[in-house]
């Protein structure tokens, strides 16, 4: 093929030749581009056969159906009851009808175009030669010389001070680009959110005398949680139940008597948490120490907390120690008590940082 190409490329196309058909000109043009059309087969050499007319009808039918579907789409878009109404079947069908009409319109236009291309346009086999590999040695030599010449003209060897000063000058210029980006975004993770507070990574909204509240802010009395039950509690501070205090959600659990006994026995191994339970009530942070999801699935039978994100499991009766899955640290316990008004409150913040681990955490 390559030889044919090289041979013909030098022969100009004689487009004026009166004897040349349009096809012959096309073919010669292709040859000049290094392409040999070796096979060209019109599917219907004789015009107007039954098969050709049939195909024409099929393609035309598809296009007309496209028009029909597209029109249906617009009509549905305008006149169908679109406003959301759960109990109205028609309004529930709005999006499916749009999808159906749009999808069918696009399907038929796609199939129509494809059929046209595949069945009505002549099949061909063309062979184009490739020009792989490197450029010619001459071209390479010229570009190498050009590059080297340009380098010489810059004269960095002759005037070394230029190069050094350019480097010394450009480095700070790069910093000009980086500085606003980094400087604008950088945020000290340990900067207290309010004056006098601790690092946000190790502190939460809980503190001494902060009430345990429900999502709506109401306090909780011991008798409101039955044995074996649990409730998600939030710090009783402004916006305590919102994402502003995403580190504070806590799980208050009312253990059954025998489980509470077991927990108290186990707590001897954790001196810092020994006085933190109140009666048969215990409160653990709800934020998983693995990746920060709420470890909210409470398995009453086995006294386990399960995090649904990565299936870490924590044993409630052993100070929420991780017993399965990827978590490595126990869920911190919130020290609680019941105050004079008979509602739950915290006696301090968590004794260890809640949530996922990080570098500075010892």
């Amino acid at each position: 093929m390559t030889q044919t190409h090289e041979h013909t490329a030098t022969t100009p196309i004689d487009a004026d030749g009166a004897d040349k058909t349009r096809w012959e000109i096309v073919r010669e043009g292709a040859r000049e581009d290094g392409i040999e059309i070796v096979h060209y087969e019109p599917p219907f050499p004789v015009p107007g056969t039954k098969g050709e007319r049939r195909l024409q009808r099929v393609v035309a039918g598809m296009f007309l159906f496209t028009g029909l579907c597209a029109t249906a789409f617009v009509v549905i878009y305008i006149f169908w009851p679109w406003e959301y109404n759960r109990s109205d079947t028609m309004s529930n069908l709005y999006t499916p009808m749009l999808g159906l009409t749009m999808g069918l319109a696009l399907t038929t236009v796609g199939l129509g175009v494809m059929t046209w291309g595949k069945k009505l346009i002549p099949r061909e086999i063309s062979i184009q030669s490739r020009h792989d590999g490197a450029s010619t040695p001459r071209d390479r030599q010229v570009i190498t010389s050009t590059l080297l010449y340009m380098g010489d003209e810059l004269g960095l060897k002759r005037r070394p001070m230029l190069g050094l000063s350019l480097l010394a000058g450009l480095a700070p210029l790069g910093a000009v680009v980086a500085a606003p980006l980094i400087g604008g975004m950088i945020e000290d993770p340990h900067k207290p959110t309010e004056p006098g507070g601790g690092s946000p990574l190790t502190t939460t909204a809980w503190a001494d005398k902060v009430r345990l509240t429900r999502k709506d802010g109401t306090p909780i009395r011991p008798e409101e949680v039955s044995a074996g039950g649990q409730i998600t509690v939030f710090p009783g501070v402004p916006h305590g139940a919102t994402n502003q205090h995403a580190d504070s959600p806590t799980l208050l659990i009312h253990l059954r008597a025998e489980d509470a006994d077991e927990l108290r026995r186990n707590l001897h191994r954790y001196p810092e948490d020994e006085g933190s339970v109140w009666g048969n009530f215990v409160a653990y942070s709800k934020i998983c120490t693995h990746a920060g999801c709420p470890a909210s699935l409470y398995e009453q039978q086995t006294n386990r907390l399960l995090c649904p994100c990565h299936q870490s499991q924590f044993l409630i009766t052993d100070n929420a120690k991780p017993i399965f899955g990827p978590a490595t640290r126990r869920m911190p316990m919130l020290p609680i008590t019941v105050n004079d008004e008979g509602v739950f409150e915290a006696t301090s913040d968590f004794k260890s940082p809640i949530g996922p681990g990080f570098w500075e955490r010892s």
Partner: protein
Amino acid sequence: MRKRRKVDLRAMPGASANAIDERFQVARPLRGLFNKVFPDHWSFLLGEIALFSFIVLLLTGTFLTLFFDPSMEEVVYNGSYAPLRGVPMSRAYESTLELSFDVRGGLIMRQMHHWAALLFMAAILIHMFRIFFTGAFRKPRELNWVIGILLFWLGFTEGFAGYSLPDDGLSGTGLRIAHAIMLSIPVAGSWVASSIFGGEFPGNGVFLPRAYILHVLLVPGILLALIGIHVGLVFKQMHTQWPGPGRTNRNVVGERMFPRYAIKQGGFFMLVFAVVALMGGLFSINPIWLFGPYEAAVVSAASQPDWYVMFLDGSTRLFPPWEIRALGYTVPPLFWPTVVLPGILTMLAVAYPFWEARKTKDNRPHNLLQRPRDVPVRTALGAMAITFYIVLTISGGNDVVAETFDISLNAMTWAGRVGLFVLPPLGYYVAYRACLGLQQHDREVLAHGVETGIIRRLPDGRFIEVHQPLSPVDDHGHPTELPYSGWVVPKKMNRLGALGPAIRGFFYPIERPAEAPVSPGHPPVTSERPRDQLEDAGRSS
């Protein structure tokens, strides 16, 4: 003669073509473009699916930006969706609800956008498999392989950012995990996390606007540029082709781009678009109104990310609780499966073309594809990688599997941990043996011929199957062995044209059927060959 004032419509095309060429000299380059030859094979369309779904993403995404508001400001919902009325939520979530319920046609656009994104990632992955298993990444196309891997990760980032924007219960949880992953980076983790989120999670309201600009401007811009380079390189280097008659390393055999090839591509684009439209209209995806707004204390079971994130979710679930604590510092276990593992996987993929070239001492350019069976080691390595990936992806939904099939969740985790190490080598072995078996069968057919399904009983009572040789037979009736040419070997009589062409027409024939075909399934009953020759034929088959 009066001057004609009317515009001569029939002369318009010629006149404008002339005007354009006078200014831009397009005659010759345009011819070259129209004439460019493309080879054809169904597997070359996988990348096109990715390209076309990207176009759908741009179109639907532009629509969505007109209504979406990435604000984290807290508002109280009061729209059409009754169950959430009066619920405090972020403005981003509210505007996504508005898009779904209060914008005419907004829901189908949202769903088409999401389906197109899933299709985009799936097409990229399958396309990558095609490139890998056929050796299309070899010299001179290593750079395009690397760009392809970059495109995967950009698509991943783009998808995750878009998934996070609605600020619903599911994506907020995903975001919190992303925050924990940032925290887990040694030394700089807490600084990286608080800088990106603007403080402690979920930050002071800067994150969603940042994710938004990343999602609608920065990443799509880079994607667009890289897709341009990716396709441009295919154009410049010319597409690879399968071996076959007349096909060499130095040519491309196929169709010129215009008109047939381009028309087929256009039709295919419409079909991809159609599939996305049908899915967007008929199948619900990411019904954020069911998940509720993000609340730090709420999560539901079976929380799964989009499918292309699931392999990382799986690796996170499987990783054992190994935490490094030394000198007062911590490296949390989350760091290894979510930062180190994807880094290693990417590096392996990037390095593979260079490693293979080095290992096989192959520095030649390759424009002919290889059948996976002909390169058993590569195919087996690919099978190993896919097995590894599938174990991780299944583990990303192991709670759903456990619940559906009533298996212990912990057993699923352990099965994943063990499977991650046992199954990939098994995948390697099975793929390797399958390649050798297929190779052997190809050679067998080339040497002996195609099985005809005709059983013949020899005079001495033996049964033999008659084979149709693919090459001329010698004096003894033995076919001369054909060399393998790296392409499909016909293995059924139909492939040899043994059956006549089908009669065209749906309800009734539209053409006269060709001459009644002679089926080789019914050879003449009487054999004119003497006995000894029959026995020879029997031995040779």
